[in-house]
């Protein structure tokens, strides 16, 4: 059994006891423990169930590479699934639960899957659940989703706070082990701004556990001295519990700092996302030990050799009384020595190599530990925990030579440098055949914007696995070469290979990878997807090299030819909260408010988001539905006078001696001929010919145009203008300015509009002085006003712009002056309905990026006299002039109902895909209170030539509804009402 030793544990404080909850059971640990070490101290060797087979799983590792001990932490709004027990620091009151089991961890129904492991071979899902088709959605998927998977998603809104943090440095050192600290010190001494990130709470990495000396003193002393020296330097910043999650182009690095996970009572944000720009990045990310592939290597109690000695040395926790060490290298002998030093038993060191005579094996033998060379594990005995191990000749097929009782197995298949970060940004790897790992190739480093290497690697991450290789003056026992072992024993039979796990987290075995190769999956990337090897949070930390080796062997090719899968950020999962940072709730995105916003709010406006703007959709009165409110607003406007906040409308000034020439290129119409003081409706197309925006252009003076754009289009159109001016016609003397927010604009609309303005007084707004489609500047009721006689409703209408600072007061003045005329504020929906009643198009409704002005019957707004405008050449293409293009018409249902939005008009026959043919579609559809019936606009094949014809439109419920093709102008077709 695993238990707490009576002494030892360099990281824990035995003077204090912490209580924590594990699956509703209260257990005890010490400050400095991880959840994993505390669980082991309480003999909780079983910590989860595997992904597919629901096999019992125990703790394998002691760090971020842990594949099995994924737990749910916290409760309610603080719950977080899939957290590694090995990196979760213990605190008093911690709540943890195991995952992926039903009904309980100890007894799991899903474990029947494991009785027939042939049931779930590689590609099982793809092969099995194909027919019958309907079964997938209703039977297979729900069952599989319930059975497979890891933790549950939290249900409550996250109660914690997160933040983003920007940082800049000359040198970023990732990893606070010996190599990282040394690199930081060198850079700091050169006067560079240095930032050091260490993902754990401790400096020094593995060295204090693995031992060695620097200049005759224990390596721990060197670590302390160096950290102290760095902390004293002003040009150095150091952060623990902060992981570099990913390295991106040109020295951009994301850091992930966990601030309060270990101390929930601490104030401030829980996680901090560091957005770092580094002149140069040094990765000192160390190495990860590889498991060995032998039958039963997933039974709880089988651990990495390094983890076993970590738990003993760091936490004073014994993973078992009798620990068999199985290895192909010298390093694992350290574990045997550590176990022995803790007073526990090592029944044998099982070494797959024919001989082991290095300094560490000699020391083990001297300590009286039996070393069995040329030997492997035939099979692990046990179910929910290891009970013994059967040994065999490594070179054979696995006949059992002897059986040793034991309760833990420490395995080591050698070490793999952590090359993830190097690879994230394009660093290449080379295969080191002698030491059996991929290491960064410094000659093929990622480069920065200047073409110089932007990342370098030091320490174990670079393949320097021993202390003397990293640090001058360091000494440690010399290690003899390992022997690559990808399967144990070499000639293992099929039934053994079915029990050799490569990827614990995704339940991928040696047999699965071999099957994939047999089925023709030769690319490592394909094999990864097919078998799920190295997917999910593991990202190949434990499984990668072993899986590649098995695949290479099955394909009969060397490992470098197989290559690795792509390493992708983040190195280990980071919280969604950290990614979102402060951007949640009210400050999720910037909100744009018009100068009159507060008045709308007080009037109880129902808001509609338009880009980043909020516009009133309608102003419902107490007890009034939105639809009733819209109808009331329309009726009041058409019969009296309405008030519209049009401030969001885009307003772009185009100024300069060549402004007219430029406007002629931007718009399909002739704009240079517009007289000062006059307004003209214009269309703007993309170079591809498609209609992209519309609006009224006003010529303020000879040199100056004011271009109105749609609300959502202001920034985009301004950018469009600038692009052409800066990159095509840069010799033209034209300047543009987006003045949208400098003006508040209010529409006074309806037959009584003039009366309201006359009551305000100050300007002559008579039809004679200010006729339709003209503009005048003056003073209205004391406000500095630009008055435009333009109409988007078909009524007598004045759009009046005043400086933004006067907007609110002007709105109030209009409301007051209009009170006696029943002036009624209206929102965007009334605006939409009224424009549709008039057959005016709306960008985004009648257009969708595939519609040209000619489709909409807007040929009158396309100049025939101009040689060129943006989009003209495109509109000459055969497809654009095709008479079969659908054209805009009005639509009236026979029964007066409102056509469904986006509905298609059905036609006889089928199309090339065998689907029902169509002959048109609805682009805008509303209930018109003015006409007392549904009205719509739509694009219909040969539409304008088919007036009064009836066609059928699909409805949502499955039937069709008949509509008559009519003129799109439903209201006041002669335009008499707007021109008074």
């Amino acid at each position, binding site marked *: 059994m695993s238990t707490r030793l009576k002494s030892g544990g360099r990281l824990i404080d035995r003077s204090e006891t912490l209580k924590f909850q594990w699956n509703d059971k209260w257990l005890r640990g010490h400050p400095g423990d991880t959840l994993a070490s505390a669980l082991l101290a309480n003999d909780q060797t079983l910590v989860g169930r595997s992904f597919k087979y629901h096999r019992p799983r125990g703790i394998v590792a002691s760090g971020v590479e842990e594949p099995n001990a994924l737990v749910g932490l916290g409760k309610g709004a603080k719950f977080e699934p899939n957290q590694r027990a090995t990196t979760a620091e213990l605190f008093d009151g911690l709540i943890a639960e195991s995952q992926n089991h039903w009904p309980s961890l100890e007894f799991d129904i899903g474990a029947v899957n494991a009785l027939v492991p042939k049931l779930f071979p590689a590609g099982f899902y793809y092969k099995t659940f194909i027919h019958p088709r309907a079964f997938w959605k209703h039977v297979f998927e729900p069952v599989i989703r319930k059975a497979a998977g890891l933790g549950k998603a939290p249900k409550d809104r996250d109660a914690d706070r997160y933040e983003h943090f920007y940082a800049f440095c000359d040198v970023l050192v990732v990893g606070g082990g010996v190599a990282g600290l040394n690199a930081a010190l060198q850079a700091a001494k050169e006067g560079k701004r240095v930032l050091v990130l260490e993902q754990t709470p401790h400096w020094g990495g593995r060295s204090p556990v693995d031992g060695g000396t620097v200049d005759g003193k224990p390596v721990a002393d060197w670590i302390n001295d160096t950290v102290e020296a760095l902390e004293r330097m002003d040009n150095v910043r150091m952060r623990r519990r902060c992981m570099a999650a990913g390295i991106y182009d040109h020295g951009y690095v994301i850091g992930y700092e966990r601030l309060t996970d270990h101390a929930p009572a601490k104030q401030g944000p829980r996680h901090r996302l560091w957005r770092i720009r580094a002149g140069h990045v040094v990765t000192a990310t160390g190495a990860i030990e590889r498991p060995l592939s032998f039958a039963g290597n997933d039974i709880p109690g089988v651990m990495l050799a390094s983890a076993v000695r970590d738990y003993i040395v760091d936490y004073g926790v014994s993973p078992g009384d009798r620990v068999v060490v199985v290895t192909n290298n010298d390093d694992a002998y350290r574990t045997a020595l550590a176990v022995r030093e803790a007073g526990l038993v090592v029944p044998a060191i099982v070494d797959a190599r024919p001989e082991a005579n290095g300094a560490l094996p000699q020391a083990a033998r001297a300590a009286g530990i039996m070393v069995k060379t040329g030997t492997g594990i035939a099979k692990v005995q046990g179910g929910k925990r290891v009970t013994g191990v059967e040994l065999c000749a490594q070179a054979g097929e696995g006949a059992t030579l002897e059986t040793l009782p034991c309760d833990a197995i420490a395995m080591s298949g050698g070490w793999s440098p952590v090359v993830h970060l190097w690879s994230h940004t394009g660093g290449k790897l080379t295969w080191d055949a002698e030491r059996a790992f991929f290491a960064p190739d410094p000659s093929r480093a990622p480069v920065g914007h200047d*073409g110089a290497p932007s990342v370098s690697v030091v320490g174990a991450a670079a393949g320097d696995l021993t202390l003397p290789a990293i640090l001058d003056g360091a000494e440690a026992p010399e290690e003899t070469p390992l022997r690559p072992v990808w399967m144990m024993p070499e000639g293992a039979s099929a039934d053994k290979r079915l029990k050799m796990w490569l990827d614990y987290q995704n339940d991928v075995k040696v047999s699965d990878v071999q099957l994939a190769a047999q089925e023709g999956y030769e690319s490592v990337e394909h094999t990864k997807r097919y078998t799920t090897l190295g997917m999910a949070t593991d990202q190949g930390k434990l499984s990668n090299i072993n899986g590649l080796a098995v695949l290479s062997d099955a394909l009969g090719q060397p490992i470098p030819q197989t290559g690795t899968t792509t390493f992708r950020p983040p190195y280990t999962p980071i919280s969604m909260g950290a990614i979102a940072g402060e951007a949640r709730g009210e400050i999720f995105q910037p909100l744009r408010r018009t100068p009159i916003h507060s008045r709308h709010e007080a009037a109880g406006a129902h808001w509609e988001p338009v880009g980043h703007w909020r516009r009133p959709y309608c102003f419902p009165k107490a007890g009034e539905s939105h639809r009733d409110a819209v109808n009331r607003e329309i009726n009041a406007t058409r019969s009296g006078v309405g008030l519209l906040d049009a401030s969001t409308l885009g307003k772009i000034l185009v100024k300069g001696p060549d402004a007219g020439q430029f406007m002629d290129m931007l718009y399909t119409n002739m704009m240079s001929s517009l007289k000062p003081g006059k307004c003209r409706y214009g269309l703007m197309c993309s170079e591809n010919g498609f209609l992209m925006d519309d609006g009224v252009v006003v010529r303020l003076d000879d040199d100056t145009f004011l271009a109105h754009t749609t609300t959502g289009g202001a920034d985009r159109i301004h950018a469009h203008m600038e*692009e052409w001016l800066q990159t095509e016609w840069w010799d033209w003397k034209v300047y543009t300015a987006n003045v949208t927010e400098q003006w508040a604009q209010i529409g006074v609309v309806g037959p009584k509009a003039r009366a309201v303005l006359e009551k305000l007084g100050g300007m002559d707004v008579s039809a004679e002085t200010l006729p339709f489609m003209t503009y005048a500047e003056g003073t209205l009721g004391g406000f500095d006003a630009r008055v435009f006689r333009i109409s988007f409703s078909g009524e007598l209408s004045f759009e009046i712009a005043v400086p933004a600072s006067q907007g609110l007061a002007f709105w109030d003045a209009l409301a007051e002056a209009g009170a006696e005329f029943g002036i009624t504020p209206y929102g965007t929906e009334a605006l939409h309905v009224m424009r549709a009643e008039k057959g005016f198009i709306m960008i985004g409704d009648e257009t969708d990026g595939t519609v040209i002005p000619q489709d909409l019957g807007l040929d009158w707004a396309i100049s025939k006299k101009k040689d060129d405008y943006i989009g003209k*050449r495109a509109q000459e293409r055969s497809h654009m002039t095709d008479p079969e293009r659908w054209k805009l018409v009005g639509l009236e249902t026979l029964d007066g109902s409102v056509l469904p939005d986006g509905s298609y008009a059905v036609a006889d026959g089928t199309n090339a895909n065998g689907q029902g043919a169509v002959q048109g579609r609805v682009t805008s559809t509303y209930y018109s209170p003015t006409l007392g019936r549904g009205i719509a606009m739509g694009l219909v094949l040969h539409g304008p030539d088919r007036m009064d014809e009836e066609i059928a439109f699909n409805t949502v419920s499955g039937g069709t509804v008949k509509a008559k093709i009519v003129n799109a102008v439903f209201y006041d077709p002669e335009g008499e009402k707007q021109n008074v």
Partner: protein
Amino acid sequence: MLLLTCPNCGVAAEETELAPGGEAHLKRVGPGSEDADFEGYLFLRKNPKGVHFERWRHANGCGKWFHAARCTVTLEVFGTYSAQTTEPPKDILLKIDDKRPGWRG
């Protein structure tokens, strides 16, 4: 996240400040042109593995367009220069010759 120095305002701008504009030095073709020429201008773009001249706008900065010469493989930036030109400046071309001999072929 690329870093490009805006030649207009001099800021070493991060990609979040920039908006990409595709291939540089296209020649506009208007009404009266052949279909094939217009297709080439509007749709056909180089997608080289290596040296590429491209348009960028310092959108969340000074707002100006500029050109960048960049390697699409290593992301090395050979230089940035004014948008008001029809071809890359000589000094940048020489620099590319030096760093990527034979790239013109």
